[in-house]
C-alpha cells in the first residue's frame, strides 16, 4: 500500500545568479515497510528531495510543480502551521551530522522526550517512559544511566542512534534520512543501517534514504532511485539496479567503485585502471534540449542530443531515462 507518493515534482531555487531548477519532474512512491534509497552525486538534487518532502526548502526554494501526497493528503499546499504538525508526528527526519543536528545544551533523554511530547501529545511522565523505551530500542547502552548525558559525551554512532530515537519520537509513518551514515565509521555505519532496516520492518515505516554512495545502500534499500541533474535517471529494485544497471550513468557509477581484490588480477601487472565517467561539464546546461547526461555518455547517439528521453518503463517497476530503453525493448548499447 502506497504511503508516500511524489509526482512530477519540480523545485526551483532563486538566488542572485538567477533561478536554478534543482528538481525537475521527480516521481516515486514509498510503501509501508519499504526502504527507497535516493542516490546521486553532489548537486544531483538528492538533499532537495528530502527537504521538499519535509517542507524545509532553503530560502528562495519552492515547489513550482507537482505534488507530494502522504496517505491521501497533499503536503505542498499546506500552510506552515499545518506542516509543523506533519513534521515529527507523520514524517521523522535524520540529518547527516548528528552533532550539528542535536542541541548541545540539552540531555539526549530530554531531546527524545520533547519529541514524544510534541509529536504524540503525551504528558511528561508518559513521555519519559516512551523516550527511555526508544533509546533502549535504538541500542543506546545503559539508556537509563545515559538519559541525562549531553550529546558530546557520546560517540558518532551513538549520537546518530539518538537522532533516530528523536525522529521516532512522534511515531511517524515516514522516516526521511539524509546521508545518515556518511559521517560514521564503517562498522558503526553498518550497525545504524541494520537498525534502520529493522525499524522499518517492525513499525511498517516508509523509509526514504538519501545517499551519495551506491556501493553502500545494498544492505538496506528495497528499491533504488538514481538522480542525475535533478531528474531520476533510473529506478528499480535494489538487486536489479546494483547487478544489472541499465542507464549508462548508473553503469558508470558502479564501474568507478574500486572492485574487490579477488575479482581482479594484480594491478601492477596489468596497469589496470578504473573505468571512469567523462568529467562533468561546468558550463551551464541548455535545459530542454536533449538528454542531460548526453555530454558525458559513452553510449550517446544522435537522438540523445536532440530529444530528452522520458523515464521509460523497462518492465514492471523498472524504469530508465534513456533512449536505449524506449518502448520497453532493450537495444544493445
Amino acid at each position, binding site marked *: 500500500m502506497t504511503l508516500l507518493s511524489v509526482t512530477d515534482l519540480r523545485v526551483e531555487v532563486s538566488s542572485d545568479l538567477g533561478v536554478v531548477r534543482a528538481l525537475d519532474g521527480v516521481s516515486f512512491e514509498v510503501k509501508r515497510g519499504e526502504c527507497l534509497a535516493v542516490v546521486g552525486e553532489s548537486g544531483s538534487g538528492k538533499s532537495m528531495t528530502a527537504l521538499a518532502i519535509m517542507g524545509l526548502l532553503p530560502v528562495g526554494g519552492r515547489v513550482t510543480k507537482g505534488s507530494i501526497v502522504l496517505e491521501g493528503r497533499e503536503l505542498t499546499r499546506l500552510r506552515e502551521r499545518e506542516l509543523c504538525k506533519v513534521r515529527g508526528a507523520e514524517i521523522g527526519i535524520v540529518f547527516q551530522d548528528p552533532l550539528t543536528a542535536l542541541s548541545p545544551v540539552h540531555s539526549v533523554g530530554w531531546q527524545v522526550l520533547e519529541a514524544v511530547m510534541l509529536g504524540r501529545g503525551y504528558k511528561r511522565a508518559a513521555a519519559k517512559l516512551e523516550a527511555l523505551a526508544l533509546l533502549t530500542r535504538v541500542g543506546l547502552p545503559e539508556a537509563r544511566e545515559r538519559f541525562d548525558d549531553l550529546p558530546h559525551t557520546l560517540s558518532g554512532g551513538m549520537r546518530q542512534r539518538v537522532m533516530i530515537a528523536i525522529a521516532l519520537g512522534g511515531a511517524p509513518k515516514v522516516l526521511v534520512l539524509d546521508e545518515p551514515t556518511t559521517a560514521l565509521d*564503517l562498522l558503526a*555505519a553498518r550497525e545504524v543501517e541494520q537498525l534502520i532496516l529493522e525499524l522499518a520492518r517492525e513499525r511498517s515505516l516508509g523509509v526514504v534514504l538519501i545517499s551519495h554512495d551506491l556501493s553502500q545502500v545494498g544492505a538496506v534499500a528495497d528499491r533504488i532511485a538514481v538522480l542525475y541533474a535533478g531528474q531520476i535517471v533510473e529506478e528499480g529494485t535494489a538487486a536489479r539496479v546494483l547487478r544489472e544497471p541499465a542507464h549508462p550513468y548508473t553503469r558508470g557509477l558502479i564501474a*568507478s567503485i*574500486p572492485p574487490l581484490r*579477488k575479482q581482479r588480477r594484480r594491478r601492477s601487472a596489468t596497469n589496470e585502471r578504473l573505468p571512469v565517467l567523462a568529467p562533468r561539464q561546468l558550463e551551464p546546461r541548455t535545459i530542454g534540449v536533449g538528454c542531460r547526461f548526453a555530454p558525458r555518455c559513452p553510449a550517446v547517439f544522435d537522438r540523445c542530443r536532440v530529444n530528452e528521453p522520458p523515464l521509460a518503463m523497462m518492465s514492471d517497476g523498472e524504469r530508465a531515462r534513456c533512449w536505449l530503453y524506449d518502448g520497453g525493448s532493450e537495444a544493445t548499447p
Partner: protein
Amino acid sequence: MSKESDSGRRSRMSVAGRASVSEELAELGRPTIEHGERKRTALLYVQRLTKVYELRRGFFRAPELAYALRGVSFYVRRRETLGIVGESGSGKSTLARCILRLIEPTVGRIVFDGRDVTALRSGELRALRRRMQIVFQDPYASLDPNMTVQEIVREGIDVYALAATRKEGNSMVAALLVQVGLEPTLAERYPHELSGGERQRVAIARAIALKPELLVLDEPTSALDVSVGAQILNLLQELQEKLGIALLFISHDLRTVQYFSHRMGVMYAGKLVELGPTDAVQKRRYHPYTRALFAAMTPSREAPAIRLPVLRETPAESDEHARGCVFFARCPNAEPGRCDIEEPRLSELFPASHHRVACFHPQLD
C-alpha cells in the same frame, strides 16, 4: 582540549610520576631488530612511532594521557604503495603528520633513505621536505584562496630554486598541469573557480613539482564524489608508474585501500594491528578487527555484518588501554587474564610470510 607536547623529552618528564606509563614509553623507544634487511633498503622506515597528548580535564586534575599513536612500525619501499586503513580517531592522520614532522612524535624513529630524520633541525628538515610531500583530504582548505593555480604550483619551485629563470618556471608549471590532467589555461584561475576534482589535481601538481620520492596521501579522495575519486586514483597510479614515487595512502575507506595498495596496514586506536601484502591481508584477515572491517565492506542481506560490542567512548580517549590489547573491549576472541594485561606485538605468524598481526588469538580458518 588536547595540548601538544613540544618535544619527546618534555612529554616523558611530564608523565614521569606515573611509573607504568613512563616505563612503557621507554620500552617503546628501545630499538628493535625487526624487519632486518628490508628495513635497510626501504625508502621510509618508521620505528615505534608514538604520539601522546595530554588531556587537561580540569585545572587541578592531573592530565590524562591520550595515545594517538602507540608504537607504530612499518616500512615503505621505493615505487610501492602502502595503504593504511583506520576509522576516525585511529591515529592515521597523526601518523601522516608525524612522518612529515608537521607534528613531533613523542617517541620513535623516522628513517628516510637510510638517514634518521627524527631530530633534524629546520635547515635540514627543509631539504627533507622536498623529498617527501603530502596531499591533504580537503582541497578546499589546503589551497590558498588568494593565490592563482600558477602561484600555488610555482611556490615550491621558487622556494627550492628549481627553475633558473622565470620563464623556465612558468613552463614547468604548465608541464605539471598537463601531467595531472589539467588544461594549462587553468593556471590563471583561483581555487574557488575549480571543481573539487580539479583542486585535488592542483594539490597533486604542487606536491610532485618538487620531484619527491615519497608522497603521503591523507584521504585524498574522501571529499570527492565517487566518480571523481576514481579519476584521482587513476591519476595517482599513472604518476607512480611514470615517476616511480612511493605512496603512503591513508584512508578510512577500506574498499579504496584494498584496491589501490600493494601492501596494507590496519590501524585501531593508534596501533597497527595487521600489516602485510594486500592480497594476503584480504584473504587471511587474521585480526578480528580486520575481519569485521572486511565483512562490513560488502554489505548484503545474505551475509550480515559481524557485530562487535559497542563502546561507550572512542578507544583513543580511554586511558585503560595503556596495558593490554587495544582491541580487548570489543574483541570476540579476547582472553581475559592475558589480552587485557599483555600487549600483543605485531609479528609474523609464519616465518617470512611478510604478513604480520598483533593478536594472541588470530583467526586461522
